[in-house]
């Protein structure tokens, strides 16, 4: 019997065994602690908070008593606030995970202000939720940029700032 026919015979034989007696699973797997961290999402979330503040600011209060106009206004405002809440919290979560799970004691030697920057991010993100606070949202983005620069530096990766290329404007810290 030629090689290919023998191996396909063996293959078919083994696969029929598999149908009645399942093979065990060999995990070539990465568990959750997989080591994939990236501050990109935290930056996007911070930009989203700024964007919501821009949209809220641009919303015109209806001048007439028209019910449909008011409903439309309330709906838009509510949605912008909901998204601002969600993304303010997302910044906190993303930064908390990288701060708590990724950074190691040796990183602090070079990045002495890491804990202070992280704390500022938590405080500022809360402020952006508590009110409609454009300044806080801009300051939040600035602190998240510092956090991202420190992160990439610990990986030996140089970074640059580039325009977000989104309607919100602003910048992103990315690997150079």
């Amino acid at each position, binding site marked *: 019997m030629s090689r290919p026919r023998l191996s396909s015979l063996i293959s078919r034989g083994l*696969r029929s065994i*598999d149908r009645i007696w399942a*093979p065990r699973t*060999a995990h070539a797997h*990465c568990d959750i*602690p997989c080591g994939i961290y990236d501050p990109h999402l935290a930056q996007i979330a911070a930009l989203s908070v700024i964007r919501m503040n821009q949209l809220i600011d641009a919303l015109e209060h209806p001048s007439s008593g028209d019910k449909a106009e008011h409903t439309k206004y309330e709906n838009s405002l509510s949605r912008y606030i909901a998204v601002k809440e969600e993304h303010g919290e997302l910044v906190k979560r993303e930064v908390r995970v990288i701060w708590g799970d990724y950074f190691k004691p040796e990183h602090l030697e070079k990045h002495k202000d890491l804990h202070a920057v992280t704390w500022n991010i938590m405080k500022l993100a809360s402020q952006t939720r508590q009110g409609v606070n454009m300044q806080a949202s801009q300051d939040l983005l600035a602190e998240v940029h510092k956090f991202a620069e420190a992160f990439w530096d610990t990986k030996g990766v140089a970074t640059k700032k580039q325009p977000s290329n989104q309607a919100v404007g602003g910048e992103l810290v990315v690997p150079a």
Partner: protein
Amino acid sequence: MPLRAFGPLIDALGVLSPVSRYIVEGTSMEPAYGPGDRLLVNRLALRVRAPRAGDVVVLRDPEDGRRFLLKRIAHAPDGAAPVPGQFHVLGDNAEASTDSRRFGPVGRELIIGKLWFRY
């Protein structure tokens, strides 16, 4: 009588078998082996000679004894003295692999067998 009634007996016989079948889940051994690949593992080969760097092996997960892992035997990391009976395992797809970089070297007794072929 349904086949599954023989389950415990079949598992006991499996221990005696010179070969075992595994199906791959996960991507830590890509591109060589990927999800859905069916592998026949030789349980005797590594009794004849010790595992060597480059061997693809199935081993018990040192962090969860009920799971089996598919990894490749690697040299000890630079500077580390090799310890007899202890083996470093790495996934080919380093970025997506939980392996000896995380759980350290594994004892010989955790290694079930050497990959023979894919079917």
